[in-house]
């Protein structure tokens, strides 16, 4: 493990994932692994799970990881603060999370005065919470923020200590089976369809020396995304294994994430406009500060462009991006 080995072995890539346990949204890597897409490309990919996207960004910036997976905002923030990271792709460019509440909360406006669970102020789930509140005409001042770390997020919800939580789709579904009184208040992708969610990012210096590997990696990932859409039967067990949820839950999540919303991109998944809007949104919310950042500097579309060109772009479905 570690950067030394990565340098000595040209075809090995260390990838950092932003959640303690791999989520459905990050399962594209598991699919690529299981289906041998990485091997076909001549890559050995090793994944490591981290506490948050912030840790992954630090790992990439410090040279201990080759490729990082994280939601958009830590990457944008790091870039703004001179952290020197570049986005090269997306695992899911659309939001794959949901706000889960007790059933008596029927619309976001009902959250007024309630205890709302967030993990850390300025981190992904808190930003999502604010977006939900905004959609109901509320601000964070209209509710009580309650800090809940990732381990006790769901238990706090079940226990009634908090009345709203942002969960991954599969977690949201599972929570509903655990407690019939819970329901999905809103899928975030519905509220803010033009928010850029998940990114793969690297450090520019790594990219300079490993451009071929970046292309190979993104090729395999894109293949995985496409495979997931085409083959639910094979996808569900792989995802169930990597996330630890049962196949029934995963199958339901598959329907939401892939059938209905199509959160995994099949082409480059790096829409300039979406990213610009995300940056603006973050600035407006005050979670992105510091110097101006330009999408053109934050993103390097070269490798994904090469990958998609090799594979041939997909079109014909409104989900294909």
């Amino acid at each position, binding site marked *: 493990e570690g950067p030394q080995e990565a340098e000595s072995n040209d075809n090995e890539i260390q990838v950092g994932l932003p959640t*303690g346990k791999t989520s459905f949204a990050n399962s594209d890597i598991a699919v690529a692994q299981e289906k041998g897409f990485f091997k076909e490309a001549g890559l050995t990919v090793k994944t490591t799970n981290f506490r948050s996207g912030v840790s992954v960004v*630090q790992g990439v910036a410090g040279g*201990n990881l080759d490729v990082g997976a994280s939601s958009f905002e830590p990457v944008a923030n790091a870039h703004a603060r001179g952290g020197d990271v570049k986005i090269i792709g997306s695992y899911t460019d659309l939001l794959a999370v949901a706000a889960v509440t007790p059933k008596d909360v029927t619309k976001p406006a009902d959250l007024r005065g309630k205890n709302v669970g967030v993990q850390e102020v300025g981190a992904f789930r808190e930003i999502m919470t604010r977006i939900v509140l905004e959609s109901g005409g509320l601000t964070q001042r209209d509710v009580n923020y309650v800090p809940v770390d990732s381990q006790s997020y769901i238990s706090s919800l079940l226990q009634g200590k908090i009345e709203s939580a942002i969960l991954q789709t599969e977690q949201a579904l599972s929570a509903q089976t*655990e407690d019939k009184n819970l329901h999905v208040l809103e899928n975030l992708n519905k509220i803010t369809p033009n928010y850029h969610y998940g990114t793969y990012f690297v450090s520019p210096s790594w990219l300079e020396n490993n451009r071929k590997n970046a292309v190979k990696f993104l090729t395999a990932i894109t293949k995985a995304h496409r495979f997931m859409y085409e083959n639910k039967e094979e996808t569900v067990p792989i995802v169930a294994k990597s996330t630890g949820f049962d196949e029934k839950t995963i199958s339901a999540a598959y329907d939401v994430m892939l059938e209905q919303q199509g959160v995994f991109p099949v082409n480059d998944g790096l829409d300039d406009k979406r990213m610009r809007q995300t940056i603006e949104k973050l600035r407006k919310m005050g979670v992105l500060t510091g110097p101006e950042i330009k999408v053109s500097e934050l993103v390097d579309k070269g490798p994904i462009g090469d990958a998609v060109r090799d594979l041939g772009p997909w079109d014909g479905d409104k989900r294909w991006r």
Partner: protein
Amino acid sequence: MTTAVSGSVDHTAQPAQASRQRRSGPRTLSPSVKWMLRLSSVAAILLAWEIYGRSINPILLSYPTAVANAAADMMADGTLPQALSESLVVLGMGSLIGVSVGLTVGLFAGRSQIVAALLELPMNALYATPSVALIPVIVLWFGFGPTAKTVVVMLFVLFPVLINTMRGVQEVDAALIEVARSFCSRERRMWRDLIFPSAVPYIVTGLRLAIGRALIGVIVAEFFTAFAGLGNLIVTNANQFRTDRMFVPIVVIALFGVLLTALLEWVERRIVRWHGDG
């Protein structure tokens, strides 16, 4: 041969035998009574946990029998042994280095005012620095692998050992130092003959504090660098609402704390035979 008592004594006047029991002072409990007390407190706590744990939502808090079942499962499917072995390597290496460094630096700093003055402020500052601040730097220097985790554990272990050792050395009886000096003991010998033995109670206390810190350090390390070992088991199972399984690594850690402390006390009793029992 006992000589006569001057003046005869009424041997039956007082119930001396009966009242001999009341003798107070440092009571020494027999080992079996001690064990009874120990086990009864543990039993009481387990019982309370079982009753309370069953009464509330299982996702919040599990209860001992469920945890025991989960532990059996996790032993059978190999997840627990595997995680344990990962954590133990980190624990062992980190503690070893932390204790060695703490002891060495503590002995020096306790004996030399120069070393103490140089270390004082940085040490106090570093000790009060939350690990969140240090972990990015540790990761930068040592990567995400076992080395970084070992360093985190080491930092957790270091300070109790260092600070207690330092104080132990400073509290050495000045009269005995004078004796050692009068026999022209060189500094090195003095440590072995005098400073170390008399600092032992402090050092043991430092080690005892270090045990708990080391175990928590392993979990923190496994949380904040790359997920692995027992820390990983906690997170993964918590994410899947498997509270009973989540408590297995936690209970394992707690058991380890108890075992290691008992071991430490046993070793101390074996080594420090000269001690009066009161």
